[in-house]
Each structure stands twice: as C-alpha cells, then as structure tokens.
C-alpha cells in the first residue's frame, strides 16, 4: 500500500566551512542534532562551495532515518543568495565546477578566515583558500539554468531578509524567473506567507529553512510536506506537483 507521511526537511544548513558559521557546526555534530530533532531530509548549503558535503554524507551513513543531500548557497552577480539543491554528488559536482570557475580568486589569511574543511570524525582537514564571501560572476538566470541543467532545484533564499535576497537586490522577482521555490527565514511564520507575498504565491511554492550557522538553531523550523519517503525525489515532486 502506498501511504504518504509527513516529511520534515531542512533546505538550508551551513557547516563550519562557511566563514560566518560557528566552529562547532561540524558534519558529525550537525547530523547528531538533526537526528535529535527528527528532521528527515537535509541539504548541506555552504556559501559557494561543497567542500564539507562528503563529510556530511559520510556522517549521515549511521542514521538510516536521515537523507543527506548535496547543495550550495550560491551568491549571484547581483549578490542574491540562491540555494541549489541536488540529488547526488555527480549532479552537484558538475554544477560546482562552473561555480568555482566563476568565483573570484580573492584569498585571505586562511586561518583567520576560518573556512574549515572537516571530516566526519570532527577533525580539521584544512582551510578553504578562496573567500567564500565573494559573488560568482554569473547572473541569477544563468545560475538557475546551470542548476536545472544538472537536475537540481533553484530556491531563492530568505526572501524576507533585507540583505542578499532576490527582493532586496532586485526590488521584486522578475516575471520570467524560473525559480523552483522561495525560501522564508526563521523570522517569519509560514501562515503569514500567503498574505505578505500574495503576488508570488500563485507562481511559486514556499519552503522554510533554518539557515543554521550554529547547532542550537537546527530543528527550529523546517519544511513539512506529505511524501512517500524522505528522498530527494519526494521533495522534488512536492515542489513540482
């Protein structure tokens, strides 16, 4: 019998790789917290890089109840934060190749920058060289096309925030924009979305991500949907139904 159940997904999680994230936000501890909070599906979305995604996938292997998927929070040329969400590493890495090529070479003192590459055992493997604060030299539409070309989902991040959101940068969402969903930050209530964003609710689905930069915010909010299971495919169907 095919029955759907409520799946809790977090589409927006940073690790200690992101320069703004807490040092304790390691792959191992993130997974422990996600398990404790009974989140079923997570996307690892550091800024402009996936250097800690494999460690998170490895750390997730001991939890059969959690699906860990690769992702990235890309900064577009307009300085819009765009979540890219993927089913597998192959699609994710194809996208990353382009993003990395178009991310400027700006380098800082590696250790001061605290862009920590960690393994699944809570150990530091190294520090990421390029500044992940930079913007990728591709525009919003080009990056959406790149993500779609690699079977991924493109979600505008924290559209209610006054910085780095598609609305703060562009004033409004362009009519032909092929976003798959809009994400609201934990500062908003999901039930207020339809009223506040009534111009967009007919065109786009809304999701909520924790945008966790530290362990204590994991599980504070999530996107709930009815799915057959906690796979990427279920989430994909939810956004495209």
């Amino acid at each position: 019998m095919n029955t759907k159940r409520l799946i809790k997904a977090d589409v927006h999680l940073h690790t200690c790789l992101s320069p703004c994230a807490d040092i304790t936000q390691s792959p191992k501890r993130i997974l422990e917290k996600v398990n404790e909070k009974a989140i079923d599906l997570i996307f690892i979305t550091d800024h402009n890089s996936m250097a800690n995604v494999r460690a998170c996938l490895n750390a997730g292997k001991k939890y059969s109840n959690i699906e860990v998927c690769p992702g990235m929070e890309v900064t577009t040329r307009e300085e819009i934060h765009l979540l890219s969400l993927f089913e597998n590493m192959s699609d994710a890495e194809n996208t990353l190749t382009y993003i990395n090529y178009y991310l400027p070479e700006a380098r800082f003192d590696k250790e001061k920058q605290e862009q920590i590459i960690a393994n699944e055992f809570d150990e530091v493997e190294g520090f990421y060289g390029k500044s992940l604060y930079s913007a990728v030299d591709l525009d919003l539409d080009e990056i959406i096309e790149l993500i779609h070309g690699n079977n991924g989902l493109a979600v505008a991040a924290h559209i209610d925030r006054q910085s780095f959101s598609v609305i703060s940068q562009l004033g409004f969402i362009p009519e032909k924009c092929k976003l798959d969903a809009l994400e609201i930050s934990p500062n908003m209530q999901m039930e207020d979305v339809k009223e506040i964003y009534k111009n967009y609710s007919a065109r786009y689905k809304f999701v909520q991500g924790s945008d966790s930069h530290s362990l204590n915010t994991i599980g504070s909010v999530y996107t709930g949907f009815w799915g057959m299971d906690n796979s990427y495919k279920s989430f994909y169907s939810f956004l495209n139904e």
Partner: protein
Amino acid sequence: MKIKELVEKFELNILTDIYEPDRGISGCYSGDLLSDVIANAQKDNIWITMQTHLNIVAVSGLKELTAIIIVMNRLPDKDTIDKAKEERITILGSSLTSYQTGGKIYESGII
C-alpha cells in the same frame, strides 16, 4: 541642467538613446539595491548604479527617473537594452566608479 547637457559635459556613453533630451533633472540617487532605489529615489532623479539586471528598467519606469547611469563600463545584457528601448528608458554609461560619477554630478550643482 538638462539630460543632454549632462551627457555632453561628462562624456557619458549612450547605451540606448536619449529619449527626452530636454528633460530636467531634479537630483541624483546612487544605489545598487533595487529595493532601496524603489524606496528612496525621487521622480526625475538621475540614478547611478552598477546593476545591469533587467529589473533596472522597471524600477526606472516606476520611479519616473530621468536616466540610469551604469558605471565602470559595465554593459547591460541585451534583454535589458531591448526592454529599455521598448519602454523609452534612457541608459547611459560611465567609465568612472559610482563615487567619482556622483562626485562630478554633485560638483556640477545637481544635489
């Protein structure tokens, strides 16, 4: 000062056309966040920006701005130029930075 005088005085590049050469300038606003420009630019302002996205045309129309000056020789996409021509929005280009462009315009008496 009128828009055509401004273009001549500062040797601005004309990226679309000057649709209303005799249109007056009420002041100037500089900004790259379109939400900020929507909130704070005034009618008949010149707008200095490095944004090249299609939405600049809509913002300029909405706020009834005199012209957009895109700085640092950045070139808008074809979509943006096409839309601006269709909507008769004047887009100019400058080789200078926002700071330098704004400084020169301020110095010329437009405040």
